[in-house]
């Protein structure tokens, strides 16, 4: 089974993240980036499926030069090959444009039996790209999988909701997004790190995919961030010494904040 895993290079949530003042897009230049943690689950699931059977895992990303690091990390984990779509015109693209580029890249790869994604990116956190991508590729859209099994030409997932867990079956090829409950992603071994250096990574531009630059980027975005305000610094908390009435005062505080 051949699997394409879509991954994103995101600003490290541990560092100071911000926006580019010139166009209010995410600042990707002045911050350390990494493979989105939520995408690691998708990579892991792909590796498990291929290890249990056969086929190969291709990891696909869109992003600037540094986004190659996300591909490299997935290759170090064990993916077989990488595709990095990079083009200055893509900068500022929204979810519809991102899904367009991903779809064309997957077509150029030659399609896949299964397309896997994370449940959301850790920067945009919109969770819409998987749905849009499935639509563009004409694939069954099976999202938020916390369990995944493939049997012959069907894929079955469990989706955990607030009230119930659903079991959903789709025919392959399909697109599945996975949650952070599905597995425990491996971390690269020494052998994995060394092996990744020899794995092939294709580098494609928009022209390679037959996409006109007017279809992507900030100009083609359906939404625009008008204004950005930095979150105010955290206020100093109030320390309440317990003089026998600690419980009551805690309840009072929670009630005043409408927590209870």
């Amino acid at each position, binding site marked *: 089974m051949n699997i394409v895993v879509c991954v994103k290079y995101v600003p490290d949530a541990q560092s100071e993240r911000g926006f580019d003042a010139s166009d209010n897009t995410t600042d990707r230049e002045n911050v350390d980036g990494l493979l989105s943690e939520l995408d690691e689950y998708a990579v892991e699931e792909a590796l498990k499926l291929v290890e249990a059977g056969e086929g190969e895992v291709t990891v696909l990303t869109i992003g600037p030069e540094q986004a190659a690091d996300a591909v490299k990390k997935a290759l170090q984990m064990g993916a077989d090959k990488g595709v990095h779509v990079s083009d200055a015109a893509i900068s500022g693209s929204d979810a519809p444009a991102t899904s367009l580029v991903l779809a064309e890249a997957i077509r150029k790869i030659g399609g896949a039996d299964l397309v896997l994604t994370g449940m959301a990116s850790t920067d945009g956190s919109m969770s819409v790209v998987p749905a849009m991508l499935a639509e563009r590729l004409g694939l069954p859209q099976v999202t938020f999988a916390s369990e995944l099994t493939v049997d012959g030409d069907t894929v079955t997932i469990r989706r955990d909701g607030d009230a119930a867990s659903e079991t959903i079956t789709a025919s392959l090829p399909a697109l599945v997004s996975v949650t952070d409950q599905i597995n*425990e992603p*491996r*971390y*690269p*071994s*020494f*052998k994995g*790190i060394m092996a990744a*250096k020899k794995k092939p990574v294709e580098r494609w531009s928009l022209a390679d995919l037959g996409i006109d630059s007017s279809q992507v980027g900030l100009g083609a975005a359906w939404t625009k961030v008008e204004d950005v305000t930095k979150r105010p610094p955290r206020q100093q908390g109030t320390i309440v010494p317990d003089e026998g009435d600690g419980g009551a005062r805690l309840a009072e505080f929670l009630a005043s904040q409408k927590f209870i």
Partner: protein
Amino acid sequence: MRLTEDHHAFRASVRRFVDVEVNPHADEWEAAGRFPAHELFPKAAAIGLLGLEYDPEYGGEGADHSYQLVAAEELGRMDSAGVGMAIGVQSMMATPSLHRFGTPEQKREFLAPAIAGESVTSIAVTEPDTGSDVSRLRTRAVRDGDDWVITGRKMYITNGTQADWVCLLARTSDEGGHKGMSQIIVPTDRPGFGVSRTLDKLGNRSSDTAELVLDEVRVPVANTIGEIGRGFQQQMEQFIIERMFAAYSTVGTCDKALERTRAFVHERSVFGGPLASKQYVTFRLAELQAQVELLRSHNLAVCEAYEAGEDITRLASVAKLTAGRLVREVADTCLQFHGGMGYLEETWTARLYRDVRLASIGGGADEVMLQVLARLDGLPA
């Protein structure tokens, strides 16, 4: 020597291993006085931690020594020093002689499972009456046909209750002093092999350090590592590698303690401002970090010289001596800046303070390092 992107990637993996597989269990293992080595070691092996420099034919990674430095630094950042020490014993203390001097048969039988994390190993040199002075060692292996019959006691043995085999140093002749010793692989399931007690220690409490008793334990002479009678010399080389582990891991321990204390002094408010507004506090932390940087640079020099095949006795002894003293000073200062809170067992500083005391004792006490260095300088010692 400079570390590359590959080193950084491997460092990230080891850090994740520590964060995911060790730190969440640290309190539990500290309280229990042991950690489940047979469960943890296969996970360490999966990322290559137990055989970095070893021959791929036996499951090793075939890496150069610099990856061992990176791994040890990260193991030093553990919240439970006993576990890091146990991994260090497996990878840099109990197995180097076997890798270097062992036969292919020995390596297949004993080294490969150790690299895979299927076997847990110990280094059994120290005895109740002989600490750093290995020349006074009394455990004796008497030859009987194709077997050694071994009788004696071994003390302070890391992984002692969980080990599947130990790399044991015993007298195999009556020559006395440094002569007539051999390194022998002793499987712990042999009749006559026993653990007389586990040791209640000040620190490194997650490590099951034990006293071992051998009462006419019979093992094949074929289990001798290298040359019969050259055990002392081979063990001295193995000790050098142990010193490097101690020095490398200390850098990680100090880095993490200073990082945590820097964050704390920003948050902690005293006399109307953060503790970090006191110049004494910031200068002291900067001063200690500067010393850590010097040790880090020195360690890289040790690593480079070792890779080049040079005799690193002096460099490694300087590193071990410096590391032991520095990490104690760092732990003491970090605890001090946490005030009363730092003295509580619930604060990380208390455990660290207890753990690091070993750094000037284990793997050759400070005084032994000084003796080595004085002799190298031509002084009577």
